[in-house]
């Protein structure tokens, strides 16, 4: 594979946070503790793939995503997005990535969402034609029409996430980062969001990096999986590959003969697998 066929290439990524040592009190020998959020992670993601990034709470997923999206600067290591570096081509990269944080909204709280969309149109210099086309597609797939003229403060969480998703894809980004997009969302809305992501990935070959705690999200969407625990990368491969590895290593089978992904993930978090 040629290097520019990769959407994302990460090499030896490290990030340490300094936290004040509260346990020791005022006169502790060490006033600050070093917490290694991410220690030496390397992976690459080819174009057009949907990759699930999973790990228990505090495993370093979010930190990794924040470094991948250029929000945090890594202490060491390199990140290349479509062959570009944040230090040199920050703006070019930002034009090509879409980000949705399930727990934060990018839309202006008090302003009708259509105006946030217009703001995106101008921020990303989207042509009127592309804007119209995308708005039509998203309106249909995500039912945006119903609440296009309402501000986010009046929307349900599901509606808001859909609107956020639309905003992140309005400028046809090549890579889409989804940080817990289905958190707190009902089953129907979840299905709709997943279906939407699939369609976008299929038709636009958008690379998707998905962080989630919902195993069904991963099963429904992902081709590949990255498992992170305590800042290290434990697994990088296909879902099927993981199941096979698990069977070979642990030899357990469930009653139906199928191994559930959730079961394997539990084993990983508990430390008895991988």
């Amino acid at each position, binding site marked *: 594979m040629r290097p520019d066929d990769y959407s994302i290439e990460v090499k030896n990524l490290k990030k340490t946070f300094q936290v004040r040592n509260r346990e020791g009190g005022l006169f502790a020998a060490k006033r600050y503790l070093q917490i290694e959020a991410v220690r030496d992670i390397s992976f690459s993601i080819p174009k057009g793939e949907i990759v699930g990034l999973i790990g228990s709470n505090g495993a370093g997923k979010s930190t990794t995503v924040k470094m991948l*999206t*250029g*929000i*945090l600067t890594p202490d060491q290591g390199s990140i290349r997005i479509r062959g570009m570096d944040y230090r040199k081509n920050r703006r070019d990269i*930002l034009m090509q990535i879409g980000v949705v944080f399930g727990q934060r909204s990018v839309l*202006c709280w008090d*302003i009708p969402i259509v*105006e946030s969309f217009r*703001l995106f149109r101008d*921020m990303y210099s989207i042509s009127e034609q592309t804007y119209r086309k995308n708005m039509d597609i998203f309106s249909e797939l995500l039912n945006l029409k119903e609440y296009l003229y309402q501000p986010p403060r009046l929307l349900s969480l599901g509606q808001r996430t859909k609107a956020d998703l639309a905003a992140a894809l309005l400028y046809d980004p090549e890579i889409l980062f989804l940080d817990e997009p289905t958190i707190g969302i009902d089953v129907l809305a979840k299905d709709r969001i997943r279906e939407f992501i699939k369609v976008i990935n299929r038709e636009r070959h958008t690379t998707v990096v998905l962080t989630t705690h919902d195993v069904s999200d991963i099963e429904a969407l992902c081709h590949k999986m990255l498992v992170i625990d305590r800042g290290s990368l434990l697994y990088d491969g296909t879902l099927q590959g993981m199941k096979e590895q698990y069977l070979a290593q642990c030899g357990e089978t469930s009653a139906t003969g199928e191994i559930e992904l959730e079961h394997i993930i539990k084993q990983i978090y508990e430390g008895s697998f991988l």
Partner: protein
Amino acid sequence: MRKYVDHMTIGMKEQLVYPGAVWAGLFSKVLYLYLQFCIWKALFSDCLEKPTINRTDTLRYIIIATIVSTIMECNVTEKINAQIQSGNIAIELIRPIGFKRMLFARHVGDTAVKMICCTLPLIVLTTVTMQWCGADGLRLPFLQEWSAGTGMQLMCIDQLGYGILSLFLAYGIQFLYSLIIGLLAFWLIVTWPVNMFLGAVYRLLSGVWIPVTLFPELLYRINLWLPFRAVYAIPVSILTTEMKRKVIWQSVSVQMVWLVILYGFSLFLWRVGRKKLVVQGG
């Protein structure tokens, strides 16, 4: 450019979402102006009749300073603080747009609304009531106090051009000052205690409450070397007091120097702070 205009309009619309707040803002300013006026008038009627301090000049200064404050007020510090504290700054940093410019665009939108909904009515109200109080026709009891200002010319019209230039510079300085304090949140996360302290210092030294000419000698001299007076004392003095052209240009140059210094410092803080950023929560 259009993206910044969008941010400006969003800033305007955000101001107008809650009309009640706009009215309350105007009402509080009217009340504040009236209070300031009464206090200063009362002070002069008794003990403060020093030959060096001119009564009309001071009253004039106070009125104009209060009106100017409706344009100068800047909530950029609170905005940055809130964003850094909640971690929502993350979503601003992934946009292909300058964060500081975006804040400025929003602030300009914000100010445009304040000018229309607050500054303009205040100017009209002040001018009209001052004219009426002197006339025989209308003598409302609560407006009696105003009669002290009857016939008073509020501004030096021939210095208006310089005054407006100076106001623009002051506006920039005020924004940069708020930006810098806001950016301190990169290190402190919570800056409101700092805000409280600096806010108090700022109110005293900028001349929005008290004309700087009334300061004791030492304080006045210290203040000459600080940026605060560039926000209120300089533009308001140019607007209200007759000065030689040379003095005006000196004052304006002082403002320009501060603008450059604060701009440089804000850039520096941004560069360094950006690396220190810890995005809060999840």
